[in-house]
């Protein structure tokens, strides 16, 4: 096939060949469903990012400027709610997870393809309802704490309903993935021959299934409070606002592991591939994913240390919080050990993976200050916290997502990305990110509280620095997205295996055919045997 023919037909080969609205709206193909989630979630990434840029504009000056305090409250609420519920939670699992779980385990689709489609529909309906709430935008903060959220004359009810549907979508997706991973692995793919991305997605799905219903019920109770006058969270009726916080964080803490585990799974794929070395400590990484998921359920109270929660509970939660750092640290050591004496190739997926490790270490270490009771009193709800969660969620999950996008773009689209543009986007993003968020650690330690539209003048210089950083970050992200879009049309054709990876998705064409594999492979080896003959777990 000539280069030109490939260029013009590249986008319409394989699973992308069939055209028309119905072929997308009613598809059972996990790959198409993954692409639709990808587009929807990244749309909200851009919208949420725009909101952030606006926020930071306001914060250039300490006094009133640019927008009212109410408008500022709306902005940071919508930035948080959109980024968390409509982007970062579904981004990797529903898009890359949907696309690649069947491919990596040698299956033709997920266990319940129709349910997969319905999950997507639920997600889209939830998005519409959530966006509709913008007609009367909420200003409660993305954490919707009572009593204010029960009283705020904004569209809390509509947003709750929208997010309930989005949450239900994620529950059903997680359920689908669990059954898929248990029952649809190719012949010969024992648990210890599974790619680590699958282990990560499995742990993620366990959390999705067990934690999300609690926030679903929390939204229902909040709506009941608003519409029926039920008083579970209302002190005037004998209720307790802290009960809301317990429920909210029972989900919202484990959900940060829903965010990070898939990203860690991606890193576990990218590092060995671009270091041409078997992953170090496969079983440790696999089990640490499960450990993180489980321990993640035990620590939610660390968001409530200064809320009025009992000291006994605070001590217990703080103590348990330290444990979650252990399996996380195990992963980081193992990735670094994989790099050691590897033959490292610094292509775009790899530079993102390395960036992830670096930034996530910072994010993770700063979590220790927050998990530790005494220091938390000083830094909680300050910009220190804001910096911590941006280093973990953006420096971690989002950079891991970028690694996955660059890694798997050729497979999904049949095109290669432009590496030069990718590199320019990369250094702009990394620079912009650090200039934006690192000063916030300092601001927080100096006492600047979060969610304040106006602040004491002494904090202005670092705020200016952070705002300028946000412009650099935004520019870098823009360039990255332009690279994606341009490469879709003009990128050179991608071979089946541009990175010489060993997982199953690289054995099929880019883009894959509808049925994935002509013949389901029989697996005889683990997918990390770069230059190596043996696999672990053989002694089992």
């Amino acid at each position, binding site marked *: 096939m000539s280069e030109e023919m490939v260029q013009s037909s590249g986008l319409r080969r394989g699973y992308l060949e069939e055209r028309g609205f119905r072929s997308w709206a009613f598809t059972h193909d996990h790959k198409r469903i993954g692409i639709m989630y990808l587009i929807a979630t990244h749309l909200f990434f851009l919208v949420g990012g725009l909101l952030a840029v606006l926020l930071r504009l306001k914060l250039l000056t300490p006094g009133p400027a640019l927008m009212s305090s109410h408008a500022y409250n709306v902005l940071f609420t919508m930035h948080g709610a959109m980024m968390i519920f409509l982007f970062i939670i579904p981004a990797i699992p529903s898009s890359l997870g949907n696309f690649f779980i069947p491919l990596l385990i040698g299956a033709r689709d997920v266990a319940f393809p129709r349910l997969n489609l319905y999950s997507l529909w639920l997600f889209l309906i939830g998005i519409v309802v959530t966006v509709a709430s913008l007609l009367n935008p909420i200003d409660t903060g993305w954490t919707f704490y009572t009593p204010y959220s029960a009283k705020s004359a904004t569209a809390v009810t509509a947003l709750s309903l929208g997010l309930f549907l989005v949450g239900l979508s994620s529950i059903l997706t997680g*359920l689908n993935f669990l059954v898929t991973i248990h029952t649809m692995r190719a012949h010969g793919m024992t648990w210890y021959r599974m790619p680590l991305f699958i282990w990560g997605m499995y742990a993620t799905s366990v959390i999705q*299934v067990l934690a999300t219903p*609690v926030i679903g*019920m929390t939204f229902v109770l909040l709506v*009941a409070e608003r519409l029926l*006058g039920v008083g*579970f969270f209302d002190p005037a009726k004998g209720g*307790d606002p802290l*009960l809301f916080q317990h429920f909210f964080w029972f989900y919202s803490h484990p959900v940060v592991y829903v965010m990070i585990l898939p990203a860690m799974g991606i890193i576990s794929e990218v590092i060995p591939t671009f270091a041409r070395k078997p992953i170090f400590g496969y079983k440790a990484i696999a089990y640490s994913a499960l450990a993180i998921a489980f321990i993640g359920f035990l620590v939610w109270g660390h968001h409530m240390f200064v809320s009025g929660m009992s000291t006994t509970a605070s001590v217990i939660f703080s103590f348990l919080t330290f444990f979650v750092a252990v399996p996380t640290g195990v992963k980081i050591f193992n990735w670094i050990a994989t790099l050691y004496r590897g033959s490292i190739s610094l292509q775009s997926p790899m530079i993102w993976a390395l960036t992830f490790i670096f930034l996530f270490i910072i994010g993770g270490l700063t979590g220790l200050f927050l998990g530790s009771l005494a220091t938390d009193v000083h830094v909680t709800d300050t910009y220190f916290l804001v910096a911590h969660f941006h280093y973990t969620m953006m420096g971690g999950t989002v950079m891991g997502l970028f690694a996955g996008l660059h890694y798997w773009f050729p497979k999904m689209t049949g095109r290669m990305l432009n590496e030069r543009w990718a590199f320019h986007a990369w250094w702009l993003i990394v620079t912009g990110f650090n200039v934006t968020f690192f000063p916030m650690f300092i601001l927080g330690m100096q006492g600047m509280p979060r969610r304040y539209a106006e602040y004491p003048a002494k904090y202005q210089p670092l705020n200016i620095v952070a705002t300028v950083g946000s412009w650099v970050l935004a520019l870098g992200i823009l360039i990255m997205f332009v690279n994606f879009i341009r490469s879709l049309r003009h990128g050179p054709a991608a071979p089946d295996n541009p990175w010489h990876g060993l997982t199953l998705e690289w054995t099929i064409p880019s883009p894959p055919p509808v049925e994935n594999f002509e013949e389901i492979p029989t697996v005889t080896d683990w997918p990390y045997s770069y230059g190596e003959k043996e696999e672990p777990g053989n002694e089992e």
Partner: protein
Amino acid sequence: MKSEQPKHEGAPVSARLGIWAFLATELLLFGALFTVYAVYRTVYPDLFHQEHLKLNRLLGALNTILLLTSSLSMAVGIAAIRRGRQQVLKIALVLTLLLAAGFLGIKYLEWSEDFSHGLLPKSNLFFGLYFMMTGLHGLHVIFGMLVMAWLLVCANRGQFSADYNTPVEVTGLYWHFVDLVWIYLFPLLYLVG
């Protein structure tokens, strides 16, 4: 406990895993309400004791009997279709639907009587919980009935057999779960408030 995979009986393991995973989500959904109950019963034991006496214990017991019997009929229906007895399945589904409707009827009676006495969700924390818990449960009963009605339509078209009865078994598991929730709701609300 033996583990067996009979060839002509039972849904495939993926369907069973799927429905149990879904029931896990339902467990946590109701679990949040049970947590609210645990918290406020601990904090307001007298309120709970005093208010729960306003519930009709015998109607609650009757509802328990109706649901338990509906679980029986569902279980019998599944056992029947595993043996290819389509007629028995249809009778079982109709019976389950009638019992479920009876449950909802009694619930309606209870609620309307409560409303007429000025007992509303906002009246106090006990009744807030009572209405939320039985309300959510009732919604699940309604949803179950809708699915069973659809199963009846499919059964009438002869779609189920000894070889294929997955939707029936899966629905049965869901229905038993609905029964399980009531098995706890009944004593917690009616007997030991």
